């Protein structure tokens, strides 16, 4: 037997084996590589170790140590490749069905959303928003609005008083007078805001609630404009198929006065449709000439119309809320449903 160099053989074997490991493309071929190099009986490393007897005694420990080191390194490479073949790349260790990392979601109060939706329609119809104080005087809340305090009409809004002639406004209508005083026609405003009544809490009443006032004052404004604008609003808000009805009523500050009712067509999830009852959505009418005169305008020259509606009631109708108090409890599980 020629003089062999077992260390060099081991080095060559290691190089070859590692290359084979690297090039193995699946677990079967990797197993073949293992058997070929490390197999107990047929493996080439085993063969070298079996030939250790040919090696001079003094070199045996060195060669043996080297052979074991090669075995270890090839084994490690095999294991590493094995796990690579199970999960072919580091990126694909991700399980994308795991939940994502979110941030808290917030939301606007449902009544704010109702007010905003109503406001956006009126904005498109040329209106701006106006505001006034929540604590106001008897003059602005009643007298200027053609409602003498000794008339039964003043009873219908049982009022909360602060001192003498100062009260918590029982409707947003005082904003009509304040806006007329501070501006000149043409006036087209809505005024959302809190109003107060001497009511206890029940399913449909709260002592404080939101109202939206509307006012239009100009030359040549007629009952037809009034009907047309509010019918247009109702169809934009409730849907184009909505029927709108104007029903005579009485408010001291408008004449003629009307309640506005809508009847909606609702489509069920299965595609079938049904018609609702008439739903009362607002009180309205042509501004009473006494109100126009109280603002310092000439009622022969200027006419107009006004309305008042409750966005809380409208939100109840729209979202199927059964109890008005739910809006003020502010349970976040309720509010979350409106966080859209």
């Amino acid at each position: 037997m020629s003089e062999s160099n077992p260390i060099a053989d081991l080095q060559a074997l290691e190089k070859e084996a590692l290359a084979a490991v690297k090039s193995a493309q699946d677990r079967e071929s990797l197993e073949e590589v293992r058997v070929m190099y490390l197999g107990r009986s047929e493996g080439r490393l085993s063969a070298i170790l079996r030939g250790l007897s040919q090696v001079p005694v003094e070199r045996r420990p060195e060669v043996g140590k080297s052979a074991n080191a090669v075995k270890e390194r090839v084994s490690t490479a095999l294991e590493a490749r094995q796990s690579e073949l199970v999960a072919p790349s580091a990126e694909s260790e991700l399980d994308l069905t795991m939940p994502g990392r979110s941030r808290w979601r917030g939301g606007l109060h449902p009544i704010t959303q109702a007010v905003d939706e109503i406001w956006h329609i009126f904005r498109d119809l040329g209106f701006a928003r106006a505001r006034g104080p929540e604590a106001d005087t008897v003059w602005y809340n009643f007298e200027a609005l053609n409602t003498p305090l000794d008339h039964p009409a003043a009873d219908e809004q049982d009022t909360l008083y602060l001192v003498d002639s100062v009260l918590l406004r029982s409707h947003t209508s005082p904003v009509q007078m304040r806006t007329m005083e501070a501006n000149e026609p043409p006036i087209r405003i809505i005024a959302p805001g809190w109003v107060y009544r001497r009511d206890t809490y029940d399913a449909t009443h709260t002592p404080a609630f939101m109202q939206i006032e509307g006012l239009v004052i100009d030359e040549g404004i007629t009952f037809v404009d009034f009907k047309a604008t509010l019918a247009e609003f109702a169809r934009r808000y409730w849907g184009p198929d909505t029927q709108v009805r104007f029903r005579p009523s009485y408010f001291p500050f408008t004449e003629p006065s009307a309640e506005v009712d809508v009847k909606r067509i609702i489509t069920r999830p299965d595609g079938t449709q049904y018609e609702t009852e008439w739903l009362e959505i607002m009180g309205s009418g042509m501004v009473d000439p006494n109100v126009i005169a109280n603002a310092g305008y000439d009622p022969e020259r200027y006419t107009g119309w006004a309305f008042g509606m409750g966005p809380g009631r409208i939100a109840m109708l729209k979202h199927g809320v059964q109890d008005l108090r739910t809006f003020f409890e502010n349970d976040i599980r309720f509010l979350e449903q409106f966080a859209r």
Partner: protein
Amino acid sequence: MNVSTKWLIDLVPGLAGGPEEISEHLALRGAPVDDITSPGRDLSDIIIGRVIRARQHPNADRLRVCEVDNGEETVQIVCGAPVVKDGACYPLAPVGSILPGDFKIKRSKIRGEVSHGMLCSAKELGLGDDHSGIMELVGDFTPGESFIDAVGLNDFTLDVEVTANRGDLLSHVGIARELAASGEGHIELPEIPDVSDLPFEYQTGAPEVGHAGFSVRIEDENLCHRYIGAVIRGVNVKSSPEWLQARLRGAGARPVNNIVDATNYVLLELGQPMHAFDLAELRGQSVIVRGASQKETKFVTLDGETRPISSDMLMICDEEVPVAIAGVMGGNNSEVSDRTVDILLECALFDPKATRTTRRKLGMSTDASYRYERGVDPEGLRSAMERCIQLVLSTAGGELELPILDCNPVPFESSTVELRVSRIEKLLGIPFEAGYVGDLLAPLGFTVEKETDGVLHVRVPGFRSYDVTREVDLIEEVARTHGFDNFPDTLGPQRVSSVADHPLFQLEDRLRAVLVGHGMFEVQTPAFCPEGEGDVEVSNPLTTVEPFLRSSLMPSLLRRVEYNMARGNRDVRLFELGTSFHKRGSGEPPLEEPHLAGILTGRREPPHWSREDEEFSIWDLKALVVDIVGRVYGEEVMIESGGVKCPTLLDDDMCIYVREGSGDIVGYAGRVTDEASDLPVWAGDVWSFELALPRNPSKGTEVVVIPLPQFPASERDLALLLPPAVTSGEVAEAIRGSAGPDLEALEVFDLYVGEGIPAGVRSVAFRLRFRSIRKTLKDKQVDKNMSAVLKRLEEDLGVEARA
């Protein structure tokens, strides 16, 4: 106003449709119906039974055994009533029928005698409180007939909502008039049975009218324009006939006796309140309408209540004492009773405002006062009186004493209102013909007296004299009768509004969007609060729990957190935009300030498998407040801590405040103290802020772009040792003041305390970024800047760099 459908149909012959259709008509006339009920509901099983013979129960003293004709056969019924008349008719609940209250009638044996059903009392049928005996039916009846058909309870009661201006609709005739005007025919008063044509004679006078037998005197003609009194002698007070009782029940009223029922009938039919006095109880032969005297301070009304009266109240008096509160309620000292023989009927016209003042002062409202407040027909008094007399004579007998006394110091003068066709068109927006306008108004009782050059002179009937006084009132009648639905609704051109959108709404919109972006929920809470949370008091609160208006929104938000936590909601982030109220001078409206408040508790981010949960801290709150404040007040605002008393809810040691450019404190933020909140043990820290918003916010300064840098920046880190009294804010200010104009940015990037640092000293690491807009900065220049910074820090604050 409860309206009987049968009564309406009798008033408007030819009125078609059932209660639903009538309701729909009324809704479109401005008098919507809230509810439809039937006085005969639950009584459809009851039939008429005639007692053939009643005998004593053999085994019970208090029971009677009756042979009753039920229309088909004769059955035996045991009855506990004290009086059962042979030959009389009673409501019979046969075996198998169900009485109100779900009471089923079974065949039974009572003390050995079989009973096939039950003869009923009014109370058992839900028709009254009378339980003393079974309900004897007055009139002709056929055994076996349906009870509700036989007595006229097959009616529907409409609960009509009458607006405050339409006192004339508080009567069946008024409602009928509206129906007739919508093309349903004309009105005819139903006939009263067994009534003979009476000659009515009046004696008129003012302020006193009378004859030998009786007199009426009005002392205050401003509060009582007219008083008609009629004396009827020899009446027989008893139950009304079934037709009258049924009529009242159909209109939601309880029958009492024939005299009271007659007055109620007239009230319900014509809207004229009537009152009957027991003449024998009146001292002296006269009635005086006057104010209560100083001595008269108490009066017992016929409901048995003792009422405090005062001299501003108008009273009906005999020669000695008051016997009724005018327009409100009679007294129990002159009430009609079973023993009454002679009566005085009152039909009067009292002042609406005075009646309202009186009844409000007494804290009561009656059918009479409700109508007087809203105005009764000044032209209808005599016909109402005559109708009432006919009813009394028909149902109670007796003799009318003539003449009837009509004291009328202020005769009614009808008014004429001018109506311009041009004004109708200007207001309503479509053309109208004068003739058509007259046609629209006529069925409502208005008369066009003349028409000249497009101006109609319209006479207003008495029953509309309260609400129709101006041209526009007539225009409403024209629009209403023409039909609101018959006006087009085509949108015409409109001029642009002169009013700008209020800037506070716009600021609120922006803030809402920002806070929702921060993951917060907007809440709305009423402004009421308990004492201690505000200084503006409601003078007539309905509850004593929250009689004040809040000066701060924070307590309301904290209560919402408590509410949520009580329901297991741990992560709560809320904000509210609302008004804060503050007391001003006496008699002045309070100061109102728009506020924004927020509250945070729980985890700062939703839980996720990749990270540990982290709770909100002061640093989250501070960053939020800085963001919000910057958007509201711009850069001119200082965030400070210490030196100011924080609101009671907040921890003084964990509180910052916001000072506006002018020096005013406009907001607070901090940790809610444990004492201030009522939270479960598992609750974490609660963080809250509140900020006053400007009432009229400016649009803010316009953005003017800073050109993007063209030269590289140079960064230097500086670890500084801050002695205990020195704050990072002071250090930052000193750095900015000394680093020269090229300092572009300054940030804190680390804080270290512990080993290698003396106790009480903090090592705070700052990163300074220098950049020139003109050139690339040389290291030498930056080093020079840094030296200046260090020098200033050492000299001013005793702060040194960490070695």
